[in-house]
């Protein structure tokens, strides 16, 4: 009993030993002056910066800006991708109309159009939202389309022969069957949304975490640059956990999500 108790806690603690040791070494190296502040600030300085910005409220302003851009860009891009994917997946005509165009556009790296986007929209919100939308549309489109096209025809035939057609067929068979694939697209799109946002905010913005980092660089505030990097990591993780929860809830039936 006590052994298994110990083992259980050991299993939880062990993965954190290396990061904790690294952090400690980093702190010691900074305190002893072995590590130049301009190269890497001490963890305590980063923490102090986080506290300072939290108290002044700046942190939340920038967090909110970034989050809002990511969310609205993702909503537009993923929403459009889903709709177009459904159309192309469900109808041969839809496929003929949209698929070739989208497959061509998909080969453009979203960041390659950044200069053009800045020319069109300047550096205001629209530019960032547009870029995020452009980057998230394709993964959702492709996976939705693929999810519908790779549905098991035997299940479709069965459902039709049991009198399930039209909207009921879509709701009960097509959508749930394509959902695992759609969610793969959603998670992939979420990852892309952050990457695009980081670059766009660093290059051209007047608020947001990327701006915070770029601005701090100008004044050699390395602790704020490091803080910004950590914030991106944290936000990315939060979004990923949210996506996982969604999958766990919607794909309960899937062999990979069944509780043992």
């Amino acid at each position, binding site marked *: 009993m006590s052994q298994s108790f110990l083992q259980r806690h050991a299993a939880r603690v062990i993965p954190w030993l290396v990061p904790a040791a690294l952090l400690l070494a980093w702190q010691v190296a900074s305190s002893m002056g072995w590590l130049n502040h301009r190269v890497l600030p001490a963890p305590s300085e980063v923490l102090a910066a986080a506290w300072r910005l939290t108290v002044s409220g700046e942190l939340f302003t920038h967090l909110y800006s970034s989050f809002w851009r990511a969310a609205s860009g993702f909503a537009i891009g993923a929403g459009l991708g889903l709709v177009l994917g459904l159309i192309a997946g469900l109808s041969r005509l839809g496929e003929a109309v949209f698929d070739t165009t989208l497959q061509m556009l998909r080969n453009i790296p979203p960041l390659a159009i950044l200069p053009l986007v800045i020319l069109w929209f300047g550096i205001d919100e629209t530019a960032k939202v547009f870029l995020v939308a452009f980057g998230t549309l394709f993964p959702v489109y492709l996976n939705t389309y693929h999810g519908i096209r790779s549905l098991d025809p035997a299940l479709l*035939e*069965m459902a039709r*022969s049991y009198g399930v057609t039209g909207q009921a067929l879509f709701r*009960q068979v097509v959508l*749930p069957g394509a959902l695992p694939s759609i969610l793969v697209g959603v998670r992939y799109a979420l990852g892309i949304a952050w990457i695009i946002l980081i670059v766009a905010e660093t290059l051209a913005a007047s608020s947001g975490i990327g701006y915070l980092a770029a601005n701090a660089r100008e004044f050699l505030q390395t602790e704020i640059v490091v803080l910004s990097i950590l914030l991106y990591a944290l936000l990315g993780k939060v979004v990923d956990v949210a996506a996982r929860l969604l999958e766990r809830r919607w794909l309960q*039936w899937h062999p990979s999500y*069944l509780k043992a």
Partner: protein
Amino acid sequence: MKREDFTLPGSIQLQGLQRRFGARTVLDGLSLHIAQGEFVAIVGRSGCGKSTLLRLLAGLDAPDGGSLQQPADQTVRVMFQDARLLPWKTVLDNVALGLAGADAPQRAREALAEVGLADRASEWPVRLSGGQRQRVALARALVHQPQLLLLDEPLGALDALTRLEMQALIERLWQAHAPTTVLVTHDVSEAVALADRVVLVEEGRVALDVRIDQPRPRQHGDARFVAFEQHILQRVLQGPAYTGQLPAEPVQPYRFNQLNWAL
């Protein structure tokens, strides 16, 4: 497309049925009459066209020629070899698929109880064994009260013991609900155990049509049962060259209980 005068209401009449896939003729003038409530088993080698015949009866495919007459308003339900349960619906919701009305869950629950799986109603299909999945599929077919039940090698993928259990279950439910039933199988023993008539399809035509006049439930080891089985099996194996005849029904031997009082 002449309708035979002797056709009874509710019966199915196939006349000179043709089905081709490209250059290959799968059904080549197949004729068959199935009476209402009858249990017909279709046997034959792989590729003889028996599954194609079933798909035509189900309306999943259309014939290239000949006529297929069946009641226009009948409910047809198919049970496939792979259970084809929707993995994202619970067992109960799978049974209720395509059911309408407020009492749908209740009817599904009753159907599930009939196949002995009432306690698994809220499970996901991946949790079930192969035999249990086929029982759910059977409940899903029967809950619609079909007039025509089509079974496409439903027990082909099951182990021998589960298969015997399922045969007993199918027989019991067929007797309770009395749908016209067509079972496609490659297992002659299964056909003899379940069907009123065993029909052998060969090269797209009916090659043999045997009425199994044995009382139910039938015993697999019974002499008469084995005679039927051997007769059909030999015909399958030897093809048209087979000239054997089904032995006549043996004279009833004396029974001990008949002798008892005479002693």
